[in-house]
């Protein structure tokens, strides 16, 4: 399969680009923040996503979705990244759908997701850094399980209808689909640097039925994380790409010493280097998406995509502010939002160091 977008995929990108830029540009994020919004995203916008079919992008056609793949999902995510659109799209339509697909819980949750009503959140992390060790305990109780422990960095955790929870049973890791209404579950929402809201969750003996288990062993969690990491990588490409575009635009317009600063070689070289890093990152992401879609072993490609986009987009936002100068430091200018989102996405589902280490271990060192 050639490593570029097909004509259909390019068409989807045009649709997604127009839609997201019109309905959820950076000013949308800014207005939510300025209104001290406590949901973290707009439910109206989520329903609009559903109208276009985006919430069902990964849901099989037989179940009412678009039946598309991770390449297509990534196209939408890149536009979300370009516009910093607050949305539960990544956690719900990508990660949760991927985890629920083919399980008994799919029938219960897919209709709500397709309608743009249901929102899902991912309760994975337990410490300040993403880690493979899961300690939240799931003990056999009655005809189901009782969950005890805590989670953090759970985007939309306070607003979600469904929580996908990684837990430790006697038999090993398992993934649970827990309705947010379950007794004993408390969510403390915290605003993060990028104005998104992530919850700290406490599970105080939360009772769930046996059918809440949607996967046992590492496989289910791995599948969910592969989708989530690849999605976050695509979003990072969008954040980095938009930052580069803004910066190039500024270099062509800002004048000093009687010339546009984009004519200065010192800045041209920085911009050209940044462009190169972002192109390389983009290729790594597309590779991971294609491998996920063809069902080949994508583990290393996914780790690579997340590690590389972390490097490239972190560079993009730093160079973006430096090349903008003082204006880039002001709240009034959008660039700061890009820097903040890049930091959050770089941390999400494992940062560059985490994935570089995973790749090193896979390569035997």
């Amino acid at each position: 399969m050639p490593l570029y977008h097909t004509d259909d995929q390019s068409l989807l990108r045009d649709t997604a680009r127009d839609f997201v830029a019109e309905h959820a540009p950076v000013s949308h994020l800014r207005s939510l923040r300025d209104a001290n919004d406590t949901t973290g995203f707009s439910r109206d916008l989520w329903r609009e996503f559903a109208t276009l079919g985006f919430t069902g992008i990964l849901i099989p056609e037989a179940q009412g979705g678009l039946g598309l793949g991770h390449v297509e999902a990534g196209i939408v995510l890149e536009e979300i990244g370009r516009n910093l659109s607050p949305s539960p799209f990544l956690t719900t339509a990508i990660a949760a759908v991927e985890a629920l697909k083919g399980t008994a819980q799919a029938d219960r949750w897919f209709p709500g997701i397709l309608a743009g009503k249901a929102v899902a959140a991912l309760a994975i992390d337990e410490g300040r850094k993403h880690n493979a060790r899961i300690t939240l305990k799931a003990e056999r109780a009655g005809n189901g399980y009782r969950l005890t422990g805590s989670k953090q960095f759970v985007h939309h955790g306070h607003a979600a209808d469904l929580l996908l929870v990684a837990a430790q049973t006697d038999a090993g890791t398992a993934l649970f689909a827990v309705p947010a209404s379950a007794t004993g579950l408390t969510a403390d929402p915290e605003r993060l640097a990028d104005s998104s809201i992530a919850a700290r969750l406490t599970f105080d003996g939360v009772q769930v039925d046996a059918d809440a288990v949607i996967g046992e062993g590492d496989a289910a969690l791995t599948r969910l994380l592969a989708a989530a990491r690849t999605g976050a990588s695509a979003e990072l490409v969008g954040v980095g790409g938009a930052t580069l575009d803004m910066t190039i635009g500024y270099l062509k317009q800002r004048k000093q010493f009687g010339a546009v600063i984009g004519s200065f070689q010192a800045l041209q070289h920085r911009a050209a280097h940044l462009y190169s890093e972002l192109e390389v990152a983009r290729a790594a992401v597309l590779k991971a998406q294609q491998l996920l879609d063809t069902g080949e072993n994508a583990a290393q490609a996914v780790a690579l995509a997340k590690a590389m986009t972390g490097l490239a987009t972190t560079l993009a936002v730093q160079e973006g502010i430096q090349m903008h100068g003082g204006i880039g430091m002001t709240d009034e200018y959008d660039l700061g939002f890009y820097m903040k989102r890049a930091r959050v996405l770089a941390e999400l589902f494992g940062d560059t160091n985490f994935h570089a280490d995973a790749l090193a271990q896979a390569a035997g060192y």
Partner: protein
Amino acid sequence: MSDLDQFRQETRTWLEENCPPTMRTPMRSEKDATWGGRNPEYAHPDQKLWLDRMAERGWTVPDWPTQYGGGGLTPGETKILREELARIRARNPLNSFGISMLGPALLKYATEEQKLEHLPKIARGEIRWCQGYSEPNAGSDLAGLQTSAEDAGDHFIVNGQKVWTSYADKADWIFCLVRTDKSSKQGGISFVLFDMASEGVSIKPILLISGNSPFCETFFDNVKVPKANLVGELNKGWDVAKYLLGHEREMISGMGLGAGSDPLLDAARKGADPLLRAQIALFQVRSQAFKAMSERFIDELKAGHAHPAQPSMMKYYGTELNKTRHELLMAAGGSDALEWESERSHGGAAARTWLRTKANSIEGGTSEIQLNIIAKRILDLPS
């Protein structure tokens, strides 16, 4: 089974039967590379066997048309062949500036007669080519070149000097930029081909910091070049030169990929301190991502989607990676990697290669020139 799946099966079977086991082992030093030419050097007889078998099928240049010695493969088939060769870690059957640089330029700009004359010999590795581009006063500012070609009826008389001519001392023919009009800088350059055995050609290898002499000074003293050897139009050689440079940059960027089994990973597996391990791991992120970028670039190129200046990005990124790779290899190798002559070190292969890579970001246009090109032609930044 689709046609491509069938092609993969057949290719795999053929390679299994025809690629000698010795040609699936990593090259120990530059001496193991096959370059062909009138006076070929083979460190192992299987090199010739492997070259001949591949050339027979046109697979030294799989995507060239068959009438020019190529395999006539589609982009999809070429990609599969490349993947299958990589799968068995096969050595390159033929290293050749004729394949990677001159061939594409001839395919685009040469007359049918010139193509039929030169391309099949390139494909079979019968003629080894060198590149006459840089001059003592024309490096990054290549179009400032002064080597002249004067009109003498049915031929040109070439006078001047080239420098950094890779393997000029081993090459049979040269593709050379010459000045045919002094009144216009870029518009006074022509692209000619001639035999290095011609009267008036002399060569002086340059001893480099690696202790090797891959580059030469090349002098032309009244060299007669038939006009039939002009490629493209008179004074339009700069177009050919730039087109060829794109391919040269593509080839050099390939160095960023490493080849066969990765010696850096082998070194890391033997045990590296935590800081070096971390540096290698982060390097591998860029290196592996660049591999995906190369795949994307080639796919886009074949489909005609690639930006014409994209080879500059590939060249810049690939060569900077390669320099870093060899810094890390030296750090991992410690004092073993410092041995310069011993048999154990294959004659100082690690250290000499490390030093050789320092030229990667200079030759074929420096990194800074590539960044200029990216800035102006891709990012559209003003002069």
